């Protein structure tokens, strides 16, 4: 069923030949499934996106949409089993990482592509100091001496604006506040000056005020270093300020891709529209919050046709029969909806 999807919007050079296309990082028709005792869950069903240097791509979606699994596959930290890549490519500087040796992939981690995780308390090792965990990168990957590595680690803590970086070096993760811990996490991921940074819900576990600070910091560091950034989130509010482009995921597929302005102004997929409508608004105080009815699909049994059709307010018979491919609509935007044109052109 998922084989019907032919990604006609694939990036140039993504014709399966693996020919370099000048893109920094490209995910091309990626397919991942989880083989469990209860059955096979098709978690990623042909995801295609790319990110260039100096640009931020936000990947938006509910839990279970496959946004984190895509990131884990890029990083090569997918738990196998149960997760298996069944198709597609992940190209870094045009080379397919899925065909590389374990050692080649390891070298890219941290240095080429680095990642920030959601829950900094569990993502940092509780029994080593924060400083050790940052300095470790310089010592193991750069062969620096203990004292040089420490100096560089303190510099990194300074760069992410941790006050008293020198004193904080020998603190343990549990002695940091949530925000400080996430800053330390950022310092750790940027230590080897990566070209691509994947931030997997970096602010979800934080207070709202701290969220803004962390997003500002990330944006600032991304601009300074001209990194390509993939920002994974389910929070539309987080995305608006930082992202250049947004890819919306649903049931392991990209359902819409557009720049921030177009997406917010004229969403071209009913799912995106639903997400935008579900943001609580001050001028609707007291009214019931709007939600998207229904639940995300069971990935072991994805509805035929458009996977969103059981929840879609615009669903027509065609939606139950035919899977809409991700098609270019206008410049630089794409939608996987049979009625994308109507959606954009209404009003």
């Amino acid at each position, binding site marked *: 069923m998922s084989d019907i999807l032919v990604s006609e919007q694939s990036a140039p050079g993504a014709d399966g030949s693996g020919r370099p296309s000048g893109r920094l990082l490209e995910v091309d028709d990626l397919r991942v499934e989880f083989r469990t005792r209860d059955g096979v869950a098709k978690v990623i069903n042909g995801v295609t996106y790319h990110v260039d240097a100096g640009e931020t791509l936000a990947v938006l979606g509910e839990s279970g949409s496959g946004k984190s699994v895509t990131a884990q596959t890029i990083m090569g930290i997918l738990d196998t089993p149960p997760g298996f890549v069944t198709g597609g490519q992940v190209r870094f500087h045009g080379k397919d990482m899925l065909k590389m040796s374990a050692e080649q992939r390891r070298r890219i981690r941290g240095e080429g592509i*680095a990642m920030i995780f959601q829950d900094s308390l569990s*993502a940092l090792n509780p029994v080593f100091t924060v400083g050790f965990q940052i300095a470790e990168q310089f010592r193991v990957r750069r062969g620096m001496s203990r004292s040089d590595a420490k100096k560089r680690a303190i510099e990194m803590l300074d760069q992410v604006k941790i006050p008293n970086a020198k004193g904080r070096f020998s603190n343990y993760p549990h002695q940091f506040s949530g925000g400080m811990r996430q800053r330390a996490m950022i310092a750790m991921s940027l230590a080897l000056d990566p070209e691509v940074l994947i931030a997997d819900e970096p602010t979800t576990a934080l207070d709202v005020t701290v969220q803004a600070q962390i997003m500002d910091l990330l944006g600032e560091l991304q601009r300074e270093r001209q990194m390509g950034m993939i920002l994974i989130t389910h929070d539309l509010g987080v995305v608006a300020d930082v992202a250049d482009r947004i890819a919306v995921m649903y049931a392991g597929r990209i359902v819409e891709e557009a720049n921030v302005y177009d997406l917010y102004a004229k969403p071209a997929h009913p799912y995106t529209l639903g997400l935008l409508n579900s943001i609580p608004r001050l001028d609707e105080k007291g009214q019931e919050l709007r939600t998207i009815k229904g639940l995300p699909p069971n990935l072991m049994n994805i509805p035929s046709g458009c996977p969103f059709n059981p929840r879609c307010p615009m669903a027509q018979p065609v939606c139950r029969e035919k899977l809409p491919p991700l098609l270019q609509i206008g410049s630089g935007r794409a939608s996987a909806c049979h009625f994308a044109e109507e959606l954009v052109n209404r009003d």
Partner: protein
Amino acid sequence: MGRYLLRRLLQLVPVFIGTTFLIYWLVWSVPGDPFAGKCGDRGCPENFRAVMTAKYHLDDSIWLQYASYMKNLFQGDFGITFGGREISDIILTSYPNTLKLAVVALAIEAAIGLGAGVLTGLRRNGFLDNLVLVSTLFLIALPVFVIGFVLQWLLGVNWHIVHPTVSSEMRITELLLPGFVLGSASTAYVARVARTSIAENRRADYVRTAIAKGLPMRRVVGVHLLRNSLIPVVTLLGTDLGALMGGAIITEGIFGINGIGRQVLRAIVTKESATVVGIVVVLVVVYLVMNLLVDLLYAALDPRIRYE
């Protein structure tokens, strides 16, 4: 860290008093005449009884007896046997042997148990995993004396790989087999605990982070994973030294080692109460010291404990 250590040390005091009193009370309250059977068929002469009663305060209340015993103990005086031998002398000759055996057992336990645990924890459900699970179950199910006699017969008597008994020199090579026998059940437990601990932590977020940092796999496992997984294993190993020493009676018997097990057994049979108490008190001290070490090692391994 200093406060942590102080608190742990203070906690030892009531435990030490409580356990030693209990032992003292149990041993000296055993019904029957402590002099029965001590002096041949005719019974003990009156003046011997008087001297011994005075020496052990046998007419005083149990509290006074215990207090004076403790007072002597802290001056290094463990008392004498009814035969007139210094008990500290018995302890000094037998304890080092048992300690040596127990340390060898502990080392084997740590090496084999931890090694098997780490290997199987990383690769669950493989051939090695099943092999270890079955063989550890075997070791746990069989009593020590069966393992001891079977291995002694096979390796010592049948195949002549080792000498079936241990000489009085107590060479380390001679102690390998008795050490393995003594620590066999514990080795199996260590392997299983380590396996579970490694397998659990293998999926932890911080391990994923370490991999995402591009660290080599042996560093991810050897530094990040192992340090966290060691915590439950350390408890098991640390508290086991005391148990190994106390439980060495059978192993010592099989391999002819002159250790505390043999001495305690003899003292119990001949109602040498002072000897029993003396040996057990030292054993209690070993337990307490090992427990303290485990607590300190804990704090060293896991900073969250240190800063509580």
